[in-house]
């Protein structure tokens, strides 16, 4: 079922935009929604806050994110969901949260819950949207940029390696581009750490029926989008190929 919600807050940071709205429903960190308004296609977005006020935070990458950015306070949105399995945290493990690029958006709720967090982006500007959350974080935060314009100079995996020199963790919870997750997953496997990672594929129904979002025999929308280290280890498609909207296999470069 969809809900029609009213936008109550908006912030713009370069090509990254956040829209917040009141939506009276229980959502866990890592779950996502299908967002639509007339004039755009419906798209999957993770929730970037999951309290009484919910929000989505997205990078403008094409027609629909561009159309969504045009929405302002008072406008209506159709929201379907929440869908999928989010991150599982039971307090029994020492957790490091890792977000890369726009993959920082879905992990903001974990940061708000007080987990230690590593944030990686290409440059300082791309981290601006996360600064308010970093300011309020109860846990430790580390930052890296590919060009060194803010924080540690390096990528997410290098940042994690640095952090692990000074602090021990049992598990990594991550979201980011698939190349980043691919190497981070490899790092976790090589170093005997557990992990949970949020993956993306082309989504249509979002609910687990149509089969457009398959990675091997898993539906990213319903069996994920957050998968465990072991589940990912068994995925032949992970870091290798995805499906286009026709279902044709497309290899990553």
């Amino acid at each position, binding site marked *: *079922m*969809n809900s*029609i919600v009213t936008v109550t807050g908006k912030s713009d940071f370069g090509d990254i935009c956040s829209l917040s709205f009141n939506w009276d429903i229980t959502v866990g960190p890592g779950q996502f929604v*299908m967002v*639509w*308004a*007339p004039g755009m*296609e*419906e*798209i999957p977005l993770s929730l970037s806050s999951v309290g009484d006020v919910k929000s989505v935070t997205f990078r403008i990458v094409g027609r629909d994110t561009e159309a969504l950015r045009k929405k302002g306070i008072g406008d*209506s949105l*159709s929201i*379907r969901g929440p869908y999928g399995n989010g991150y599982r945290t039971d307090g029994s493990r020492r957790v490091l949260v890792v977000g890369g690029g726009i993959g920082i958006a879905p992990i903001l709720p974990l940061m708000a819950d007080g987990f230690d967090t590593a944030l990686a982006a290409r440059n300082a500007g791309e981290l601006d949207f996360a600064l308010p959350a970093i300011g309020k974080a109860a846990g430790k935060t580390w930052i890296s940029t590919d060009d060194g314009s803010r924080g540690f100079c390096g990528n997410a995996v290098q940042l994690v390696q640095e952090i692990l020199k000074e602090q021990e963790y049992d598990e990594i919870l991550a979201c980011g581009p698939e190349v980043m997750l691919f190497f981070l997953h490899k790092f976790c496997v090589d170093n005997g750490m557990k992990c949970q990672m949020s993956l993306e594929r082309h*989504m*249509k*129904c*979002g*609910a*687990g*029926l*149509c*089969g*457009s979002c*398959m990675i*091997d*025999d898993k*539906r990213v929308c319903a069996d994920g989008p957050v998968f465990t280290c072991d589940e990912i280890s068994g995925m032949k498609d992970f870091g290798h190929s995805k*499906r*286009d*909207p*026709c*279902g*044709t*296999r497309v290899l990553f470069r």
Partner: protein
Amino acid sequence: MDLRTSVGSLVLDNPCILASGIMDETGEGMARILRSGAAAAVSKSVGTNPNPGHANPNFIEEEGFCLNAMGLPNPGIEEYAGEMRTAAACGKVIGSVYASSPEEFADLAGRMEDYGACAVELNLSCPHAAGFGMEVGTDPLMVKRIVSAVKDAVSIPVWSKLTPNTHILKDIGKAVEDAGGDAIVAINTLRAMKIIPEFGRPFLSNRFGGLSGSAVRPVGVRAVYDLYSTVSIPIIGVGGICGYRDALEYIMAGACAVQIGTAVLSGTDIFRKVNGGLTDFMREYGYPTIGEMVGVAHE
């Protein structure tokens, strides 16, 4: 209790089959359903060329029903070979095809046979694809030509999936039988629409879609009941089956097997659950085989 059933010459371990369009765009999706207790899986409806389908939004679920206008997305028959082979290695796969002419249907069906399909299912019933589906499947003469052409082209059983969006369902069923069709699958979704009042607009990008889930079950059961009294070829019941009692309604209306689609929303274990329920029911009510229950509601 014996859950085995047969659709003509095709023997199935149990009566539950995955319906077309559900988790079957890929071979591994179908393989997973076959491992989850389904006796067979019907593939996504595949056409000659790659088709991305209709734009999002193309799906919504509500209390008791779903609406979809996926628009028959598929990678085209050439590319689909790999998916069929992956799935066929794990069990029985029925190749679903859609086309706009008898020749094209025959060609696609032949390819599905080459790929290892144990039967073909002709999509004569999709309600939201211009020039295909129910647009070719509501004309008895056209249906007869299509089924005849496919029968001439393949040696595996030919199933025809019919639409409830017609007042001449019995005539179409008769046309399938007259053309030598091996079985009838009923029903596909009902043509439907949802409007969002706040936007003053239909929700689906295609405006129209197909209704599935519990809400369509009484229509499907009636369709199977009507067909059973009209034709003597096997009937496969589909539409809104969410539990074993729903499957029994179809079987008692005249279906020798059933397909399950929308109920996969509740989990891929739906096939095991229905089979478990059927076994218990048959024990309690004294039916030794599925066959003993087929069509009993007509007596």
